[in-house]
């Protein structure tokens, strides 16, 4: 399925004020992959996503979606393929009800109103908020807003989902919901985040960006357990891979393997607390 | 800046102003669509919300103990240009009319015109642009904002006076009304000028590109002198026409009493009502005779008196009784409906 491939070749980009935000980036993303893009604040993650979406155009190099180069001309077609969820859902939910918002995209592609409705309901069901369809955005919780924003992109039926910090500002429960949601998508996914545990859970491959350049590109497990690499890029090991704060052992796939065999109830409680 | 309320205008004035405003708005939309900058639509939307919110940020005016806030007309004109500024003002006023009853649907045209037209289409192109024609400096921003806000608010205030008087809903003599409104709006204008200057200066320091863009984009900026003169002379003719019409309707010069400007057309309707009423009364013959005498006396007393049918004693007694009954009936009806509705909810629940 080569038409789902996204290819970035020798990408360069500077902001109008001269700041070089992206320097010589190259990578390819294949159909069905889930990619986490991580890096410190200001590393250039959001900028990279904007270049993929054709919001900005590169100063050098190119972005190919399928075999099509992202240019002004090919934008309408590219944007039907790629769906992007913004960091602040308030920017994305610009209509007065959830339904109108989710319908905005399909309507722009001049679908029949029946098709629009079907797509809207499908998208809302997918993210689990069909009951909120007539709500005003300001009446949604942070997690619900995020879900609505994701639905507004899903209704366009993109092949690739691109998300900027999908779990920032969410409480643990809402975060969990969004993570489960992300895991349930079969789309090709590109996710930027500082929430490395979320990235570890939802992405198989990781690209680390440092000052506009790719510092590493590899499997999630390899990169996220490489403490030196992460430190040098202004990041830390994900919590779930850090040493147990109680007894200093590393956490395995199923939690910490503690040296002490805990018998009494008190300690058991403590153990439960230290997990996640 | 004061908003006109529905209760203060006549349908004729409201309708005329609504039509005028619709015309200006249609022209503005056309101009905007020619620009083909779809980026402007979200910007207008969010800027409208900004002005709405900024109007609520009060600041203390030094030495007076009172507080002021932004009106926003000039700000919108300067940042968005006249067409988008005007439309944005219109959408703010519409939301205020609907959700707060501030202004009103009938007075909508008046308000958009008073607050949007003079700022965007008079003060901005002819005054602010003139001050900043040789490039932007903070002094020019200050002078331009101040002068344009003052002029726009004076024009707006005068417009309020004219609309109110033409509507004939109040007793205020023209002279006194003007003497009241213009100085108040001089003060408001100074405040508006200051805050507009402050915020524009800030934007100019932090993001000069925004102001440059607004200034360059604007077709109004390089408008030819001929066009300016034409627009001005049209404005003069319109305003002058209004004035002379006003003056001729009021031969005793500045003694413009509302009695006369109220127009005769409106006064005829109550007359008709009066007669119908008399007829019904005579047919039903339920009221004592003196009522009609009083009514006749009133008719000779002049049209203005007739404007108030309840003047005579007989009808005023029945008016009071009937009025009380009407109110009681209305409240009772509402109460009964609510009661029935509650029952229904209870039984279905």
């Amino acid at each position, binding site marked *: 399925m080569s038409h789902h491939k996204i290819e970035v070749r020798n990408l360069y980009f500077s902001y109008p004020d001269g700041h070089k935000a992206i320097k010589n980036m190259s990578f390819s993303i294949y159909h069905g992959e889930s990619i986490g893009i991580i890096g410190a604040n200001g590393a250039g993650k959001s900028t990279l996503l904007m270049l993929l979406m054709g919001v900005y155009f590169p100063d050098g190099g190119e972005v190919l979606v399928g075999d099509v180069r992202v240019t002004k001309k090919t934008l309408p077609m590219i944007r039907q393929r790629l769906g992007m969820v913004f960091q602040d859902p308030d920017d994305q939910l610009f209509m007065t009800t959830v339904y109108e918002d989710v319908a905005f995209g399909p309507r722009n592609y001049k679908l029949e109103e029946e098709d629009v409705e079907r797509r809207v309901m499908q998208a809302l069901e997918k993210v689990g908020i069909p009951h909120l369809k007539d709500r005003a955005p300001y009446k949604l919780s942070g997690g619900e807003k995020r879900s609505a924003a994701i639905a507004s992109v899903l209704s366009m039926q993109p092949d690739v989902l691109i998300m900027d910090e999908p779990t920032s500002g969410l409480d643990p429960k809402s975060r969990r919901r969004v993570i489960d949601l992300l895991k349930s998508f079969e789309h090709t996914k590109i996710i930027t985040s500082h929430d490395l545990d979320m990235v570890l859970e939802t992405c198989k491959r990781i690209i680390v960006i440092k000052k506009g350049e790719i510092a590493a590109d590899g499997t999630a497990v390899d990169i996220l357990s490489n403490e030196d690499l992460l430190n040098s890029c202004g990041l830390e090991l994900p919590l779930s891979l850090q040493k147990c704060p109680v007894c200093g052992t590393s956490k395995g796939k199923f939690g910490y393997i503690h040296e002490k065999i805990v018998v009494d109830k008190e300690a058991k409680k403590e153990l439960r607390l230290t997990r996640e | 800046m004061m908003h006109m309320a*529905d209760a*203060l205008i006549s349908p004729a004035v409201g309708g005329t102003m609504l039509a005028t405003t619709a015309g200006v708005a249609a022209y503005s939309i056309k101009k905007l669509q020619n620009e083909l900058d779809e980026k402007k639509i979200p910007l207008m939307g969010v800027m409208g919300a900004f002005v709405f919110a900024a109007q609520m940020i009060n600041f203390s005016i030094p030495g007076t103990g009172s507080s002021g806030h932004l009106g926003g007309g000039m700000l919108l004109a300067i940042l968005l240009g006249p067409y988008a500024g005007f439309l944005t003002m219109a959408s703010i006023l519409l939301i205020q009319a609907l959700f707060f009853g501030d202004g009103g649907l009938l007075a909508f045209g008046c308000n958009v015109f008073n607050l949007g037209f003079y700022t965007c289409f008079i003060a901005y192109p002819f005054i602010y642009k003139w001050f900043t024609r040789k490039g932007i400096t903070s002094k020019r921003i200050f002078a331009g904002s101040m002068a344009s806000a003052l002029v726009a608010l004076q024009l707006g205030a005068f417009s309020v006076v004219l609309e109110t008087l033409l509507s004939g809903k109040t007793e205020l003599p023209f002279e006194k009304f003007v003497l009241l409104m213009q100085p108040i709006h001089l003060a408001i204008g100074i405040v508006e000028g200051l805050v507009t200057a402050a915020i524009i200066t800030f934007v100019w320091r932090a993001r000069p590109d925004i102001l440059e863009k607004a200034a360059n984009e604007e077709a109004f900026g390089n408008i030819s002198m001929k066009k300016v003169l034409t627009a001005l002379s049209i404005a003069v003719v319109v305003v002058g026409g209004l004035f002379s019409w006003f003056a001729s309707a009021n031969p005793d010069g500045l003694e413009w009493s509302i009695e006369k400007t109220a127009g005769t057309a409106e006064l005829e309707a109550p007359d008709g009502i009066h007669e119908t009423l008399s007829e019904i009364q005579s047919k039903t013959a339920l009221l004592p005779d003196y009522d009609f005498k009083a009514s006749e006396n009133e008719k000779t007393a002049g049209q203005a008196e007739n404007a108030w049918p309840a003047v005579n004693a007989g009808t005023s007694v029945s008016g009071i009784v009937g009025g009380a009954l009407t109110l009681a009936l209305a409240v009772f009806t509402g109460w009964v409906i609510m009661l029935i509705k509650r029952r229904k909810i209870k039984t279905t629940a």
Partner: protein
Amino acid sequence: MSNMINSLSNMRLLDDLARKETFIHRIHPLIKLLTTVVYLTVVVSFERYEIIGLLPFIFYPILIFAFAELPVAPILKMILLIEPFIIGIGILNPLFDHSKVLFGGIAISKGWVTFLSILIKCSLTVTASILLIATTGMDRFAVALRMLKIPKIFVLQILLTYRYISVLIEEVSRMIRAYSLRAPGQKGLKWSAWGSFAGQILLRTFERAERVYQAMNLRGFTGEYYTGDIAKLSFKDLAYFAAWSLFFIIARIYNIPVLIGSLFTGVI
């Protein structure tokens, strides 16, 4: 600060009320708009001395309140909030017009009569506007605008403004809270701080506008606004409009309270 929170909660209350499902809510938005306009026009068309003749017009708001199951107290509060502005203008009448009229044997100043008339008209018109939005909501109101051939782009812009008022008022009140924590006991902002304060928010507004534009653009927005299908007018809608209009016009032509009163006083 408090006026900001107030306005916001009022808007949200109206927004909530508009989502109810009563017979009034289901009337076509265009019809409700037109009915309101007829109502306003008729009420406003009374001359400045009329009081009694205006009273039947209270039936309209009362019936809407009742049928649409709207809470009376909070809406009344909103209306009272706007009243001072009108009183400000209306109160000048008694000052300027001292001529007396006889009313039920008592001499009263015409200025006060005018004042009272304005007050009643204002209460009725303000109530009617608020009831319109409380039973329609902004989205359906936008549909009415569309049907009146208001350009879609303008409608979209109104909706965007409406949407972002919430967001911006919250942002502004957060900033004001932060400001007043550092400047306790100050009434309003210090004048010198206002420019940079509002300027900061304005810059963020610009950035937000940019992001909103990108979000719209990424979902295929190219300067056209496509709304969903617009509901057609039904017979019920037309009947609603006709019935109210008829009532308004009759109440305009005939002074109903005086009629009722004269029948009543005559019988007794």
